[in-house]
């Protein structure tokens, strides 16, 4: 099961017909032939890239506002009630989306199949719990301070896991990370200070009480937690975008595409793989800290292998390598069992089937938009795509820019 060069989508008569239809409808000028055959939302990424920057921002702002309003609007068909509180469901979805964004850096960008991502989630949860819970004998610090501490500790664990194991490739790495995930869970069981199944109650939360003296960030009050997580998610997305459109992102993708060629092109592959692990781990720890704060209780029961595999499923489902896809995948994987409580017991069956179907019909995930790797590539590509006229104009303009720089 390789993220690097997944199977090419099967050519079915239906698929080809769909591709032809899309071509007939017309794709924006300059869209590569590659994008056309990508599936249901094939042209979407290209169309999005073709929009002017202002329109993109305007659209994004509307999406963000809607996302913030989601638990208040509580849309009838989408709502998870009466089975589950919708605001809490939103919080769970946001945490899962954050997990998927973090794991996407490891799997989607650097192409390292990490089956033990739950370990970082667990470490983040435990750091927060042990530093805030009344059951813990450690020193206590305010909840919000535990978030950077949790990230730092998990990043350290990421490096700790990465340095000895990242010399392995592909399947071997997957097995080792799977083992690491189990090690953390078992340690939580056998180390007395981590309290095993008894766990930690009364994990801290951000300060603040409302008029009646009830804490704003109460365990059952999903909306403020959701807003906090969503805000953090947006910040992480922006930072991940910065990394993607930089030397770092390009080096990661180069490693994913061909590690040997990347090394030959001057990419310090080992260093960047460790960075991918560390950054991915940091985001995992961050989401663990948020989850444990909201739930208010941490024990060793929820950090099992199956959840770890669900994390991977979320990334693959959404589209490995695409952070928007990862959000979609993470949110969906969290949402479906909450919305359809009747089938929640069969969720692994359903996700398994969904993954098989996606692998067959949509090997690149639901949203397979390609990542942008150049911070200032838009204009250069636009110039290339504009054709010969623009090219002539550009060669004329180039000596000027050269002198200016």
């Amino acid at each position, binding site marked *: 099961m390789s993220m690097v060069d997944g199977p090419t989508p099967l050519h079915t008569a239906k698929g080809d017909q769909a591709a032809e239809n899309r071509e007939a409808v017309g794709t924006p000028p300059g869209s590569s032939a590659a994008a056309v055959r990508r599936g249901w939302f094939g042209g979407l990424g290209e169309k999005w890239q073709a929009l002017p920057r202002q329109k993109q921002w305007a659209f994004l702002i509307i999406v963000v506002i809607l996302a913030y309003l989601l638990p208040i609007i509580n849309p009838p068909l989408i709502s998870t009630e009466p089975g589950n509180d919708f605001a809490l469901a939103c919080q769970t979805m946001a945490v899962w989306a954050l997990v998927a964004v973090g794991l996407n850096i490891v799997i989607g960008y650097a192409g390292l199949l990490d089956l033990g991502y739950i370990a970082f989630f667990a470490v983040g949860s435990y750091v927060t719990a042990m530093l805030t819970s009344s059951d813990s004998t450690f020193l206590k610090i305010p909840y919000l301070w535990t978030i950077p501490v949790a990230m730092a500790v998990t990043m350290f664990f990421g490096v700790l896991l990465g340095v000895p194991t990242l010399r392995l490739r592909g399947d071997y790495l997957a097995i080792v990370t799977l083992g690491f995930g189990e090690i953390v869970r078992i340690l939580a069981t056998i180390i007395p200070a981590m309290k095993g199944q008894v766990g930690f109650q009364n994990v801290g939360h951000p300060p603040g009480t409302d008029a009646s003296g009830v804490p704003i960030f109460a365990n059952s009050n999903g909306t403020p937690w959701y807003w906090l997580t969503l805000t953090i998610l947006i910040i992480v997305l922006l930072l991940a975008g910065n990394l993607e459109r930089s*030397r770092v992102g390009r*080096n990661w993708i180069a490693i994913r*595409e061909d590690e040997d060629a990347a090394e030959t092109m001057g990419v310090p592959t080992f260093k960047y793989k460790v960075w991918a692990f560390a950054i991915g781990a940091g985001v995992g720890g961050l989401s663990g800290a948020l989850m444990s704060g909201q739930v208010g209780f941490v024990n060793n029961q929820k950090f099992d292998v199956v959840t770890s595999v669900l994390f991977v499923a979320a990334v693959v489902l959404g589209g490995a390598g695409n952070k928007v896809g990862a959000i979609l995948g993470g949110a969906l994987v969290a949402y479906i069992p909450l919305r359809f409580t009747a089938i929640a017991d069969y969720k692994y069956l359903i996700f398994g089937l969904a993954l098989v179907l996606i692998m067959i019909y949509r090997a690149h995930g639901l949203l397979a938009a390609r990542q942008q790797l150049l911070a200032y590539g838009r204009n250069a590509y636009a110039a290339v795509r504009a054709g010969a006229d623009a090219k002539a104009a550009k060669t004329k303009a180039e000596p000027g820019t050269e002198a200016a720089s």
Partner: protein
Amino acid sequence: MTESTEETGRHAGIPGVDTDVAEAAAAERDIAVKVGDDLVEVKNLTMKFGGLLALDNISFTIKRGEILGLIGPNGAGKTTCFNAMTGVYKPTGGQVLLEGRVLNGVKQHKITRAGLARTFQNIRLFGEMTALENVVVGLDARHKTSVIGALLRLPRHIREEKSSIERGMALLEFVGIADQAATLSRHLPYGSQRRLEIARALATDPKVLCLDEPAAGFNPAEKEELMQLIRTIRDDGYTVLLIEHDMKLVMGVTDRIVVLEFGKKIADDVPSVIREDPKVVSAYLGEPEDDFA
């Protein structure tokens, strides 16, 4: 940088060559040796795979500013020699020196940064990246932006990103595929992929550019264009090591040729002498009447 004006002048008349490339690419190149001095020294290079002696005590030098051909029949050890030089293999014995600095045991990406860049016999581009992004990965070898710098978009990151677009496009223009800059490299036509490999290697700002069979699968017209390109690269101040099967290309473009057979060096001379060398002829060319000239 005294050279750059001279280089610009030299290419003013060559069509299809971006004169900015020499400046753009050579901007940070700092070569210690003079033109004509030994840039790379391969000393007694030996490579064993178990009981197989793939390279047996090979010694040759690459002089700065020349195009050196490395030829030999199939299985002679040309690519092995390449791999041992560029750090893919760890040589069993002997040394490779670049400007007097020993490259044995140095990590591959550091060898690239030291100034030895290569292309691959079987094309190995980053398929999911556009042509421009592929070249920029090569340019990144000289960039110094850290993860923190990229995360917070510090000034150096912005400066490097902006310059890499210009230099990347200039390099693509130089190899003649600028109009395909936005195409995913796996969707490029074969010839363009070969050219993109050269552009990506040039982007690492090498002192020596090692081309591993760059003309494989080309038709005669494309080979002619490639010869032109290799000459232009040399004229831009690069030193070129060329592995090639095609005799016409090798004879036409190289200044000197090293011939390998069964892991041994059997000849090292200018093309006109190599052509007449009976050992080479019997080992490699077969019949002397072959129309290799």
